């Protein structure tokens, strides 16, 4: 395999990974505060939908290349809207967090498609957005072998995701906010007794996860599909959830997990370029990313420790 192929593979890996990274960051923030977020899939769906719709309208209204950014913004906003449902249910009404997450997935899938049908006269898909993101070469950096092509010639969303990894990492481990957030997920009553507003913290975290997962979904609409339909988001949210756990609830870990998964996906395309690939049943090639993920987990990572209070509703005087 030559250097150019490797760079191209990496580049493709980033395309796959970007949305996963963003959604996984959302998952981390929420779960670090103690709220299980199995609704990432739904939040991404909401984000992708809002992005496709609003970018389309922005483009029609003549916003040009600002349209995908408007889409991203709308995606984040819509993600928050659905995250709010999750927050109210799990934090205020102490509903089971897994149940609520599954519900988010259901409602997001149903309502976005319903809205598409209302907004696009019965069509099951939004109209194609022409003004989507394009890869941006970063001067000089893009000349570095392998990672130049692999990373520094990527979508703005990829750069955004990587920057957000840094920001979330910093926020979690260096700021007062992060310290408090983590304490709320580990030992909410400890946080409570030092005057931290546990419920408010958790609301913030879940809403932020809506922003990030919404952005993740929007990324897919604004880079790969240009439209939204029932299968724009089909399983990425769950892969992102896996990345959260795989990455041990750490932004850098999740970045690694998401990249690994993206890379495994791109391997199977490269494989098909070789003549010997016709000897391998294509099904085995499709399986590859999933099998590799399991193998890595078995070989390297082992047990990961979730935040101690993950999944437990909190109320004062809880015993």
């Amino acid at each position, binding site marked *: 395999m030559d250097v150019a192929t490797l760079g191209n593979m990496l580049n*493709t890996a980033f395309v796959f990974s970007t949305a996963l990274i963003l959604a996984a960051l959302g998952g981390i923030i929420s779960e670090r505060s103690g709220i299980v977020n199995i609704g990432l899939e739904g939040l991404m769906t909401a984000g992708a939908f809002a992005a496709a719709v609003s970018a389309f309208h922005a483009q029609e209204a003549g916003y040009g290349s600002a349209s995908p950014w408007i889409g991203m913004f709308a995606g984040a906003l819509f993600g928050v809207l659905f995250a709010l449902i999750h927050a109210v249910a799990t934090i205020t009404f102490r509903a089971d967090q897994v149940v609520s997450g599954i519900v988010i997935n259901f409602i997001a899938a149903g309502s976005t498609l319903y809205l598409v049908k209302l907004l696009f006269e019965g069509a*099951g898909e939004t109209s194609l957005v022409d003004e989507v993101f394009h890869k941006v070469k970063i001067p000089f950096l893009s000349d570095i072998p392998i990672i130049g092509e692999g990373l520094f010639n990527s979508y703005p969303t990829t750069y955004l995701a990587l920057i957000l990894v840094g920001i979330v990492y910093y926020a979690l481990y260096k700021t007062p906010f992060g310290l408090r957030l983590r304490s709320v997920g580990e030992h909410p009553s400890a946080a409570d007794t030092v005057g931290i507003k546990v419920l408010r913290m958790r609301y913030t975290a879940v809403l932020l996860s809506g922003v990030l997962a919404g952005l993740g979904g929007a990324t897919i609409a604004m880079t790969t*599909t240009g439209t939204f339909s029932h299968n724009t988001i*089909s399983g990425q949210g769950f892969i992102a959830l896996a990345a959260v756990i795989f990455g041990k609830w750490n932004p850098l870990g999740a970045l690694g997990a998401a990249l690994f998964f993206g890379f495994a996906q791109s391997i199977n395309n490269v494989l098909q370029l070789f003549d010997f690939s*016709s000897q391998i049943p294509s099904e085995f090639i499709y399986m590859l990313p999933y099998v590799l993920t399991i193998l890595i987990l078995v070989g390297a990572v082992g047990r990961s420790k979730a935040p101690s209070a993950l999944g437990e509703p909190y109320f004062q005087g809880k015993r």
Partner: protein
Amino acid sequence: AKNNNNEGGASGSASPSASPSASASVSASPSASSDASAKDMKFAMVTDVGGVNDKSFNQSAWEGLQRLEKDTGASVKYLESKEATNYLTNINQFVRDKYDLTWGIGFLMVDAIKDAAAKNPDSKLAIIDNVVEAPNVASVTFAENEGAYLVGVVAGLTTKTNKIGFVGGIDIPVIKRFEVGFVAGVAAVNPDAKVTINYTGAFDKADLGKAAAASIYNDGADIIFHAAGGTGNGVFNEAKERFKAGKKVWVIGVDKDQSLEFGDDVTLTSMLKEVDEAVYRVSQEMIAGKFPAGVVTTLGLKDNAVGLPETSTKNVSKEILDKVEEYKAKIISGEITVPTAQ
């Protein structure tokens, strides 16, 4: 509806090649006579799990029915299948509601149509892309390999890098026909060109299509023919992106004239598969009392049911199009037999 009987009897042996009688009547009928009887008739279709907006045969079929409604005043309706169990129940919904003709759209409908037909001998059914041998079913299949051969000719003559790609959905007989015909067409005009085959394993994953296209283009190919439904959107997106970055690459679309949706910058041509036309015409025959019951119609180049769209002239040179015509004639005349499977 009685005169269907002799036609049904005639096609006892459902040969894959089109029965001449069927194609003759197809070309004869489309006089839009919105007589009173048509207004009382009800036509329906059931989609496969792709849904009615799949940008592929389901959508095309629905467009055919919608045109029928406009032209004849007949009422039309569709039901989408969420999962495979719904094929039969959806078809039965129409059959039991005494629809005059119910279409099963797509390859996968075959068992459901067969079952419904056997249990409701008085009803009329039709299927696209597959064959059901029953006296009350009209089957319409396409010689995709013939059309694919022609776009193969275009690709073989257009490529500058002698590298060409094919992106398929899943490896099933229909899609295989596209692949085999395409590869044969390329080989006929440019034996040096290499065709990279990539089946993505899905008809609905644009991200997989995009990644597949990226790796094929990165490998030096300059043309990709896709037969992958929604997955193919990813192929177009990848090409558009490269175009905007200043690299000229081509996509050959499928089923419909995809230049209309994805623009002329990247769409070299498309391999038309006129499902809408077929649905429209067979339904018209039904109105005219000439439903091809029990007949298997294979629509190919000679029926103008597969082929290249008019818009091809924008990006394909006159010489190449002339070559295409040449090959088309040879296929119709039988001088060339396009393979259907490897």
